[in-house]
């Protein structure tokens, strides 16, 4: 039910933005805490610098990376795209259940992929909220791209984008009855 991770992946599967939300019981400090656990481990995604906001815990990264394969399988299916309306073509849906979480995917028409790892049990109801979250993140991404100073194809380095994505995620977590956020 709670969103654990959000990742935005670029066209060539390079990571653009990673966000991890942890409940306070699992971490010693504030409720939103990106832990650079993989500082001393080889970086799966090939980061240059493992700053706090660029990294996810290793476990989450593995799961996200694995689900990218599944995503590629699904979107490799070209004819399926053209027959649907624009609202449907972006939402992929459940990519894979991983341990106690589920990973959902969303692809934009420019092949930017957004992945969200959600904990809890699979329910149809919450997919609606997730769709709205994905739409919001997509809009924020578009606004970010329109900034003339933003470097496209590179990691998203904007304070404003980060802040707004966190707000959207907080709202999502609240509407799904999570107590700590």
């Amino acid at each position, binding site marked *: 039910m709670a969103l654990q991770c959000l990742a935005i992946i670029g066209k060539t599967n390079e990571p653009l933005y990673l966000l991890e939300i942890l409940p306070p019981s699992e971490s010693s400090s504030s409720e939103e805490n990106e832990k650079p656990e993989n500082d001393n481990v080889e970086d799966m995604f090939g980061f240059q610098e493992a700053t706090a906001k660029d990294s996810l815990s290793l476990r989450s990264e593995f799961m996200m990376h694995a689900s990218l394969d599944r995503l590629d399988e699904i979107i490799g299916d070209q004819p399926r795209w053209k027959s649907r309306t624009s609202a449907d073509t972006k939402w992929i849906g459940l990519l894979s259940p991983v341990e106690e979480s589920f990973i959902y995917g969303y692809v934009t028409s420019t092949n930017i992929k957004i992945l969200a790892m959600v904990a809890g049990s699979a329910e149809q109801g919450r997919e609606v909220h997730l769709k709205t979250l994905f739409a919001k993140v997509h809009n924020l991404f578009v*606004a970010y791209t*329109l*900034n*003339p*100073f*933003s470097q496209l194809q590179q990691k998203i*380095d*904007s*304070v*404003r984008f980060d802040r707004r994505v966190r707000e959207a995620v907080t709202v999502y977590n609240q509407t799904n009855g999570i107590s700590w956020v």
Partner: protein
Amino acid sequence: MSKSAAAANGHALWQKMPKANAELFALTYGTLVTELVRDYETTAEVNEQLEKMGYSIGVRCVDEFLAKADQASMVIPPCRALQETAEVLAKTGFRMFLGISAEVQMINDSSFNLRIYENPLSLFVELPQEPKWKEMKYSNLYCGIIRGALEQVNLRVECKFLRDVLQGDEVNEIRVELKEVLADGAGEEYQEE
């Protein structure tokens, strides 16, 4: 001319002007600024170039302003004090060309502050975090425009940005200081034959 008359004129002129897509406008300006940043090394040079560009825009704008006002049968009487000039600039000029209204705050007889709340040039813009961007005056074009326009009506001014929304302040504020009233041809444009 009074504030409300200036504002009414501004609104009427804005209605008659051809419009452009705001996003296209902002994005074009954005790429202009990023190109300048690539070409010049320091932000001070970029600011200066923006001001120069603004200057050439300003000298052309004022003729258009007076011509359009004339065609719309609007009377823009000669300004007797800097305050009137400031009001016409803020309420009529800015309104006509950009669709925004600016506020004037007189500091003394020879300088005033121009406050702009919404800036169509900086739609979507967020400056990067590095320290060198602290000196960046993204909308410095306005300073040049004001300087160029006022120079055509024989007022030599200096403009600079005091506060900038992109740098974290709440409003955009430009300080305009009158340096000199140029003598050549003063009042010719306004004289009725």
